[in-house]
């Protein structure tokens, strides 16, 4: 018997035309669930085996930056939704998860982030993002689907810009019949290497 798994979380389903209607619609600015905290920074740095004293050594970090700073790679984590909350439904923080399309799964393909300033302990992140582009249906090594390009701006509680991210995600399904190899482009744009 095949092992069972839960549906990851509710994705929006619809057509390519439904998805196109969401382009350039600017979402509301949302506050992150987590304030920037040293405990989560330490767990992340333990996972990376990153000894950078900007994240571990208060004396060094204060002298260098004015305090312990968050690793740039944790930027998206502060906004992750809790698995359960007594008063709120679980909601996706980023628009890419809310775009109606046929694919039943997704994978991140490429991302680019410009950082403007550090996040410090106690900071509260907020973000606003929008869908920039939805590709026509493409066949890749993983499956058949659409590439979504989104842009997100991140701010601290003082309304200072922290970072701007452009992200490319593939929303797809795995067809029952394997995609013929000749339909798979190789070695050019990142999405063609999936």
């Amino acid at each position, binding site marked *: 018997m095949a092992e069972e*798994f839960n549906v990851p979380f509710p994705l929006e389903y619809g057509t390519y035309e439904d998805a196109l209607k969401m382009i350039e619609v600017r979402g509301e600015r949302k506050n992150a669930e987590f304030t920037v905290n040293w405990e989560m920074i330490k767990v992340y740095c333990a*996972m990376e085996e990153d000894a950078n004293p900007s994240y571990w050594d208060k004396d*060094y970090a204060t002298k*260098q930056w004015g305090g312990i700073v968050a690793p740039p*790679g*944790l930027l998206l984590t502060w906004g992750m939704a809790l698995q359960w909350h007594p008063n709120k439904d679980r909601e996706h923080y980023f628009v890419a998860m809310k775009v109606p399309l046929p694919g039943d799964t997704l994978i*991140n393909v490429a*991302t*680019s982030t410009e950082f403007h300033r550090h996040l410090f302990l106690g900071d509260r992140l907020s973000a606003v993002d929008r869908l920039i582009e939805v590709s026509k249906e493409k066949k890749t090594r993983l499956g058949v689907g659409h590439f979504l390009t989104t842009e997100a701006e991140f701010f601290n509680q003082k309304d200072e810009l922290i970072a701007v991210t452009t992200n490319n995600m593939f929303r797809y399904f795995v067809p029952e019949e394997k995609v013929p190899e000749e339909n798979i482009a190789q070695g050019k744009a990142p999405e063609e290497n999936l």
Partner: protein
Amino acid sequence: MTRTIAYKFWDEITEGETLPRVEMPVPFERVILDAAATQDYFPGHHNPAYAQHQGQKNIYLNTMAIEGFIDRVATDWAGPHTFIRKRTMNMRASIYAGDTMVGEGKVEKHYEQDGRKLVDLSILISTQSGPCVPAQLTLELPCK
């Protein structure tokens, strides 16, 4: 075990310089730690059956874990006084539980812009199966 911290200054760096190779095994434990550390419970990162449903061979590291490893390759070399100005990465192949990832890098450009002392790096994250994630970083560094 205490790791030695390196401090590289902008005026010591030359174009073409190579960064020390950083290697890190990725057992199941690290992939699960990744999900917990980044609060990313997308099932491709913790459930092998779901990962296979996605066309993947096993659970795999998420974007934030790879970003952190890329940044570590840069800052292990340049030092903790580095401010990462920009990071661009393409995930061409997944990094699976059971893999060992390796980061290698090179200084592509050494320059000043808007009063900032900058260095552009190319970094490649590979596993025993081949190249996975090419990345480009712009670092801001102090002078000696």
